[in-house]
């Protein structure tokens, strides 16, 4: 509206047309992303995942958690329940933090489907490279906090 009032009709239509084209180009990718998410959620044996990143899995556990965060597609509706399930089954807090941060920052479906259309490949690739070590760092910080006495389970039942 502001743009319409300020710059007039032609400018308005030009932007609108560009955006609608972008929207059309995104659609197949978004649909693919949704389908990948649905299938992986159905196919992945969660017990197996929980065993890999569970308990005192050490630094390797963080690496595996980061890798799974990268691998697992899906939106927040799928990711947080999976993370919650990890916790219940016994994954440690650091691994869960790493997993969520990794999914948020370097998950490939998210980058391909959402980020790429807006920023273009060059920006996205370098942003992901800059973000690579971050999930591990967050996991280590979380472990330090837990060791310092932070309770992450709701004990009041």
């Amino acid at each position: 509206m502001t743009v319409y009032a300020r710059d007039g009709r032609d400018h308005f239509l030009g932007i609108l047309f560009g955006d609608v084209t972008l929207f059309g180009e995104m659609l197949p990718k978004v649909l693919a992303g949704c389908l990948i998410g649905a299938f992986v959620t159905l196919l992945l044996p969660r017990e197996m995942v929980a065993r890999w990143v569970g308990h005192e899995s050490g630094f390797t556990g963080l690496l595996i958690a980061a890798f799974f965060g990268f691998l697992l597609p899906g939106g927040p509706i799928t990711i947080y329940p999976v993370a919650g399930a990890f916790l219940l089954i016994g994954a440690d807090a650091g691994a869960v933090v790493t997993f969520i941060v990794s999914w948020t920052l370097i998950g490939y479906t998210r980058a391909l489907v959402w980020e790429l259309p807006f920023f273009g490949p060059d920006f996205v690739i370098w942003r992901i490279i800059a973000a690579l070590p971050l999930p591990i760092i967050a996991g280590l910080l979380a472990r330090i906090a837990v060791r310092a006495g932070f309770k992450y389970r709701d004990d009041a039942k």
Partner: protein
Amino acid sequence: MMVVINIFLWLVVGVLAFIAALRGRVLLNEGVRAGAMEFILLLPRIAIGVIGSGFLAEALPNEWIAPWLGPGSGFLGVTIATLGGALTPGGPVVGFSIGAAALKSGAGAPQVIAYSTAWALYAIHRLLIWEVPLMPARMVWLRASASLPLPFLAAAMAMLLGRP
């Protein structure tokens, strides 16, 4: 580039659907239905985000962005961007579209990276709407506090790399 990515994504879909089909018809149907449902639910949000972002880029005050968030704004710019990211509401598209708009209007890449990282990690509304209902609350606070320094680290990495 876009075509390659499309082909890759749909190949992944095909392989997964094939595996699901091997395990049984029901599983295949369930997957297709769940995926299609999510897609339909997302559509209006994406439309608003994408179409809105172009106008947002035009409406953003360009003369403010360059001095505060430009490549020369350094650590202060990164801090402002991080705060902005944490306070930006909305679904997956909003943060990216604002970031892209700011980039076009002259913001520096490390600052935009800090913005989108902060927004992705601890946008306040998302913690409250998604994470707290689905996970133990204390776990959410633990994750959010462990994530606090990450936008700064991401921006620092980008500065070190000198890219994008």
